[in-house]
């Protein structure tokens, strides 16, 4: 009913961006609507920088950060954060170590001081490490009892083979068992540094105060980060199918798809629009319509694109009764083929474009939504005016583009299919 001009998307007009001399890029967006501050950031080191026999090391190291640092042992850290209802966390992805804080504005400076201490001066106490290892192994056991996560692990292993993208970030029981305290200390010492790091802050703060805080606590940090170089990913030219039998289960999880594109690929927007039509729009696009609504085979049936620094898969997922696996797979494959064989209708195209551009205000409502969007833009070098140009990029996609990328990537003769479920 009202749509105020001053609620412009985050961009050069309302986001402060600077680079510290040690290589940290800092972005600040003031938002005084609620007495809350969110900080999100990346260090430029992740799972691709660990060796295969230590799979899980990046993630294990990141999780240990909040279990002891020079000024905060485990109990002091927990009490300091939780006594004020805040959260401070860290974790690792393929390419980055992520960290974040959420707090009331009045507690933000303390959270930054604490965050800097855990990033720069973790002590990796042996006792905490063993306790966490025990927890980790049980969580890996749970991962192997879950049809969706087993399907996902096998899909990536089959798709990527020995490439770092083929390993689960949380590792394997045997690699987690083999991680020593020296491995963790060395991984931190050799790889954690300000170079290439990004920190994004949104909330009830002033830009000047944030710059001063970050400079005080992280400005004198020195160090480099490892290069983000990836081994090449070989294109898939064959069909790889696997069924994983899991006793005690009643439903099967299906993942089917092919290697597609990297985030920087010129086809990115075309694949996103095509993916929306295929398995996202409304109630999960064409896949939802055919597999769920028309045939009643599944509660969920959708598609997704995972595009990172290296090429990622474009794939579909569904959870179905074991008796319906073949029918569901054939229905999904038929939709893959149809998207590449005939142009989508004008209505489908304009619907997905309208959704993808129109939903931005929802994604950018909260501080958390803003920081994750800005972090993503900075990390992939999309430009601070990315959101201003976003609608033009989406609206430029044609039905021919959609058909072309579907035919190129959703190939009937080269795909990976994993089914995990009852024997």
């Amino acid at each position: 009913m009202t749509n105020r001009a001053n609620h412009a998307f985050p961009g050069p007009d309302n986001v402060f961006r600077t680079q510290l001399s040690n290589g940290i890029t800092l972005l600040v967006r003031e938002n005084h609507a609620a007495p809350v501050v969110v900080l999100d950031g990346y260090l430029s080191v992740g799972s691709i920088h660990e060796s295969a026999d230590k799979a899980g090391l990046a993630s294990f190291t990141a999780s240990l950060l909040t279990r002891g640092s020079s000024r905060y042992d485990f109990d002091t850290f927990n009490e300091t954060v939780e006594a004020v209802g805040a959260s401070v966390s860290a974790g690792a992805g393929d390419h980055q170590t992520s960290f974040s804080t959420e707090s009331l504005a009045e507690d933000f400076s303390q959270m930054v001081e604490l965050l800097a201490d855990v990033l720069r001066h973790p002590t990796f106490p042996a006792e905490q490490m063993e306790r966490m290892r025990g927890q980790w192994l049980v969580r890996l056991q749970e991962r192997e009892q879950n049809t969706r996560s087993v399907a996902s692990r096998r899909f990536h292993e089959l798709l990527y083979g020995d490439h770092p993208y083929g390993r689960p970030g949380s590792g394997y029981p045997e690699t987690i068992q083999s991680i020593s305290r020296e491995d963790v200390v060395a991984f931190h010492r050799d790889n954690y540094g300000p170079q290439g790091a990004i920190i994004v802050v949104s909330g009830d703060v002033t830009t000047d105060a944030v710059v001063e805080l970050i400079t005080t606590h992280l400005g004198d940090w020195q160090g480099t980060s490892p290069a983000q170089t990836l081994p090449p990913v070989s294109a898939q030219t064959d069909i790889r199918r696997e069924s994983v039998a899991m006793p005690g289960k009643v439903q099967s999880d299906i993942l089917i798809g092919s290697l597609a594109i990297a985030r920087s690929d010129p086809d990115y927007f075309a694949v996103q629009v095509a993916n929306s039509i295929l398995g996202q729009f409304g109630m999960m696009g064409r896949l939802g319509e055919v597999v769920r609504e028309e045939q009643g085979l599944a509660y969920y049936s959708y598609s997704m694109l995972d595009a990172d620094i290296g090429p990622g898969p474009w794939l579909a997922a569904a959870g179905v009764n074991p008796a319906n696996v073949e029918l569901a797979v054939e229905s999904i494959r038929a939709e893959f083929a149809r998207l590449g064989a005939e142009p989508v209708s004008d209505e489908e195209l304009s619907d997905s474009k309208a959704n993808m551009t129109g939903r931005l205000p929802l994604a950018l409502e909260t501080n958390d939504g803003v920081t994750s969007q800005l972090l993503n833009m900075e990390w992939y070098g999309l430009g601070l005016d990315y959101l201003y140009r976003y609608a033009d990029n989406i609206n430029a996609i044609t039905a021919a583009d959609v058909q072309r990328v579907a035919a190129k990537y959703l190939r009937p003769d080269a795909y990976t299919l994993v089914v995990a479920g009852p024997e």
Partner: protein
Amino acid sequence: MATTNENGLTITTLDNGLRVILQETHQAPVASFWVFYRVGSRNETPGLTGISHWVEHMLFKGTDRYPQGEFDKVVARAGGQFNGMTWQDWTTYFETFPSDRIELALDVESDRMANAIFDPEEIDPERTVIISEREGSENSYRWLLDTEVQAAAFQAHSYQHPIIGWREDLLTMNREDLYSHYRTFYTPNNATAVAVGDFDTAEMLAKIEQHFGALARGPELKPLRASEPAQLAERRILLRGADRTSHLQMAFPGPNARHPDFFPLTVLDAILGGAKGMGLFGGSSSNRSNRLYRALVDKELAVGAGCGFLPTIDPYLFSFRATLARDVIHQQVEDAIWTEIEKVQTDGVTVAELEKAIKQTKAQFAYSSESVTNQAYWLGFSDMIADTDWFAGWLENLVAVTAADVQRVAQTWFTRTRQTVGWYLPEG
């Protein structure tokens, strides 16, 4: 149409009985609109378990104006987010939109309050979709244990059965059952509409009147009378399965939302198990300094532990959960939880712990205020289980809780004969 303004809210009831709660806020150019119906699995009878959830599904399957597939398209096309959710005490539908499109939510929700078709051709495909949803849950022994414990904890009250229903009932229910449930409970006088966000209150109220005002009032519903008899004997569940990870659950009958012990138990929940996020699905919050974490996880008896206590219309459960560490037996974990309960019963809690619970709650309220969707959800479900004053008084009521209150409610509600204990353990 009398309108009251309280707690920053505008509250009114239309002539046909629809309650309306509005909160105008211009923090972001978005608005969220919800309709809550006073019906959920609590209202279900044997043979028809799961019917409320199935009816919720059918409300996405078309009206004359928005045929099958049109509803989700029209909302998505406008950049909206939507969902439906069925709970024990209520069923709800919402749309969140860029604020200039919010009227579309009023249009689709007023339409399906009265005009859902329940096409006979759509019943069987939806039956298999729901059975598939249930089978997805059945893949988890944690879910199965939870279901078994809940079924054992209630002998008379309909909180006994899972919201999705028993499989046997899902196989036999028919269109007539579903349509009759819809016609009985989906009336303006059995619903509350909530709007939060970037709109003008007077304008929004006029539009709600315009879209919903002509819907006919339904017959008054008789209040439910089932009440659970006092539990006299400890109940134990032993579930075995193929998964290797062990779980434990303990449940005690608790008071409903309006009971004076509700707030002391909410404080106890935070002290024992940590602060809860207020996100739509619980949200997350750092919780490694609470008593259960220290007693179970730090001591390497469990890899995860917590407790849960929800506001409900009728008395429900205060429950404890743990995922066991390797080579730990269930009795050790059960004993350790009892030790923590008895510590509170004997020694009480500290003022510092009370203050922490209050500060954590204040922080969660502030985080939650960032999202119009979250705010509308809290207003609506509060109105289902109590009323908006109950929600407005939340913080004040928590602040008023004393250490003596917490100790007293721990003594009152946690006794050995009133527990239902569930163990999941691997076969062999």
